[in-house]
């Protein structure tokens, strides 16, 4: 993504960042070498993966885990490690 960087007189003063949580626009998914694959059939929606994920990358819709935010997931594998039902497996990233 080629972004036009702002000039000094367009930035808020003092180096402050006024948009909370805008790091969402920065994609750390490219760091991955392994990706988590979620198997909804085995998942019991215990949400342990959600609690242990350092990257807020477990997608939950209407109370159900539906997969991972692969734009941000760094592939650490903690979700797979903690999953009591082995509903998440780590697979080599194909690039």
């Amino acid at each position, binding site marked *: 993504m080629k972004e036009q960087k*702002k000039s000094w007189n367009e*930035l808020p003063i003092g*180096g402050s*960042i006024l*948009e*909370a*949580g*805008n*790091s*969402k*626009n*920065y*994609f*750390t998914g490219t*760091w*991955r070498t392994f990706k988590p694959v979620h198997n909804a059939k085995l998942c019991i929606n*215990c*949400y*342990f993966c*959600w*609690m*242990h*994920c*350092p*990257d*807020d*990358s477990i997608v*939950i819709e209407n*109370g159900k885990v539906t997969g991972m*935010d692969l*734009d*941000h997931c*760094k*592939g*650490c*594998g*903690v979700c*797979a*490690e*903690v999953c009591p039902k082995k509903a998440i497996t*780590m697979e080599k990233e194909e690039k």
Partner: protein
Amino acid sequence: MAFLLKDLIKKQAPLASGHRMCAGCPAPVIVKQVLMSTDHPKVCTNATGCLEVATTIFPFTSWKVPWLHIAFENSAAAVSGVEAAYHGLANKGELPEDMKNAKFIAFGGDGGTYDIGIQALSGALERGHNMLYVCYDNEGYMNTGIQRSSATPIGANTTTTPVGSQSYGKREIRKDLLSIVVAHHIPYAATCAPHDWMDGMKKSQKAIETEGPAFLNYFSPCIPGWKIPADAWRKLSELAVKTCFWPLIEVENGKWSLTGESKRIADGKAEKVPAVEFMKNQGRFKHLFTQKKDDVLALIQADIDRSWDFYRKMAGY
């Protein structure tokens, strides 16, 4: 109060994704556990260190709460200033509605807390600000490339205590920060390990809701610093508690107690696991095994036994 994951998932996580903490670093999980433990408005300060650097690389921030970083050694002084501003504005009737009942939380690494920041921490605790200080203890200066801190355990290979022909790694035992903090007679202090999230969140909630200063020392395994796999933090957090390397402790108004697995071990309901089980899969201790440094391993076990005995006694066992 018990926390239910089915309720927590509905709330907004305090840290957005897109931060640049290492893959598998539990520090963001610690932030989540602390900040999601209450619904109060919160303002955070952060010492220089991995958490600060990697979550706020301009123009991006991961923080969804008001957040301030000034420098390395002054997260506690910073939180004092914000808390003072709260009262100063309130005295003049200028405190905005959305900040009524706000809570103030400082984060710092072990370097920023045990070492260079201990003066500011001690000052803030003594002055009695209504705040929580959270140390995420990864047992070294990780942001600057894995140097030893006074929280680094004996035997660890770090870049300022490298293993060599005359060195087995760090020689000194860890500083007992919890006891130092407790000596300020603050209303609440505790240790947490992030794998026991329920224990951590209950303590966080108590700590935040306590009037006056509170302190949490949160165990935080470090992937590159400890030379461990990216999915290892949970297991190591668990082992640190099971080996009594990192006992779960709570000190409320001077009364010590053990919690979680540590309490079970003290009560004789669970086995205290040998320290080597915690150490053997960490690269920072590898030389102790490959070079058969049984004497150093024995030193480490003895240090754990000593401190465990101390904490058990403090907790009335």
